[in-house]
């Protein structure tokens, strides 16, 4: 899933850096990988691609701070499903 998320961040949210810099632990907000509109697009893409529902109160830095944290959120949801 991490690779899919990474591809989305680069190809759809247009992050300017190199793929190799976009590690699982890179802080996404501080490095401007995700901005406010990008976040909304990411949430709806995650919902449609992985068939999960993400509530507004889950859209917080703890869940969207890094690719690893997005992956953890997604894994927990897929396991519970």
């Amino acid at each position: 899933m991490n690779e899919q998320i990474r591809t989305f961040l680069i190809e759809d949210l247009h992050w300017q850096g190199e793929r190799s810099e976009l590690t699982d632990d890179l802080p996404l907000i501080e490095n401007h990988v995700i901005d406010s509109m990008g976040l909304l697009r990411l949430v709806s893409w995650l919902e449609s691609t992985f068939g999960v529902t993400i509530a507004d109160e889950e859209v917080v830095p703890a869940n969207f701070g890094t690719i690893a944290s997005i992956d953890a959120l997604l894994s927990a949801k897929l396991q519970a499903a």
Partner: protein
Amino acid sequence: MKSQTIDGLLTLAAQSAPGATAVVDGERTLTYAELDEQSGRLAGVLRERGVQPGDRVGLWLEKSLEAVVGVYATLKAGATYVPLDDQAPVARVGYIVRDAGIHCLISSPGHGGHWAQLGGSLRTVVVAGEAPGAQDGIEALAWSELEAATATAPARVQDPDALAYVLYTSGSTGEPKGVMLSHRNGLAFVDWAAREVGLHPGDRLSSHAPLHFDLSTFDLFGAAWAAAPVHLVPAQASVFPRELAAWIRAQAITVWYSVPSILTQLVLRGDLAAAPLSSLRTVIFAGEVFPVKYLRRLVELVPQARFYNFYGPTETNVCTWYEVPVGADIPEPLPIGRPIEGVRAIVRDGDGRTVTPGEPGELLIEGPTVMHGYWGDPERTERTLAVSGDRRTYRTGDLVREGPDGNFDFIGRRDAQIKTRGYRVELGEIEAALDALEQIVECAVVAVPDETITNRLKAYVVSSRPVSAAELAGACRARLPRYMIPEEFEFREALPKSSTGKIDRRALQAGG
């Protein structure tokens, strides 16, 4: 007017309230005395490095204490600041650096690897942090060297018509264009706005818009006008609506100014019903149309505040305003209101005749807020700006209608300029980026209306050989800021044409 120059507002604030907080950037703050002193010292350093009155100084760094010091230092040196989008591709930043003839840049260490790529005649970079080693003949000065510098701001002739800042905005021919604004232009708006909303030293202003967006002039200079603090919105808060709401509460912000789409996000996802924003007394929005259904909910959620719609292209600064009525129905669409003090609004039809109220026409703006022209482009200036002595009249390209109460309604554009998230975008600039690819036969970018961000961008493309949407997006990424990259690419065999052979955007927009 309190002052004839923008930096004069800082001097006055430093005299009247030296110990008052001027800027809040996370945990770091500057008082007005400190901001005055640091910007004076940097102004002296800039002059020692050869910056002359009238020169342009680039600001390529995140909004921060250092960026604010850089703004005032540039003005104190008698120079003109050119804010560069911190997130824009290097190619675009380089274009602006060369176009504006920037010799001296104030930048962040993170951009260090790109200074030498900007080209032009860049000689000196003042770094907001540690300076990396020398770069291809470009001198890099660490911020800490300022503290050791004995330089002070040079005495200068106060010329209110000198250029204070040049703001680059999207250009229809494929490159951004620089809007030239003087101290008098900026102050005509700031002084009016500060009095109208009654800014005072007890206020706490927010600063959400980036410096290259003209909304930022109210935040910074309005704060100095009132000797009140301006709080820079941190990156995290600007991304997560709940974080933003929590930040507004924690900083006890009293005056907020941003594009409507941010306020819409606060309404939809900020959880305001559970945790109200009780400190806000004034909420101002500008840059795009605020959908009334979300504005109505915002007014209900922040009942103690007054709400203002400010209108004006970068070329005229804010030129009309409308206060949202409380306890009454909000008119739909929301009017852009009536001219601010000193500004005259004229509505003309396609033949140049002034129309009567109620009839649609193009809005022309005349008065002290109107720009001095486009940097280095007298031809373009002449097409939209009429100058007669001190009187400057700008053709906005916006179609409006004057209502029976004297308030203007915005109807639309007479060209291919659109708004998305408050950013102004020329569709032609995106098309030029796509056309630069050799496999593109023709393309058209259209704006697809969206209720939360005004418009989404969609590109229709005809190519001579197969090309993927990812490749097209990649080509855009190299030249355009993110908000200008189409979200969707659709491949066609041909594009619909009008009878004159032009691409028929309306047909595309209608899905044809």
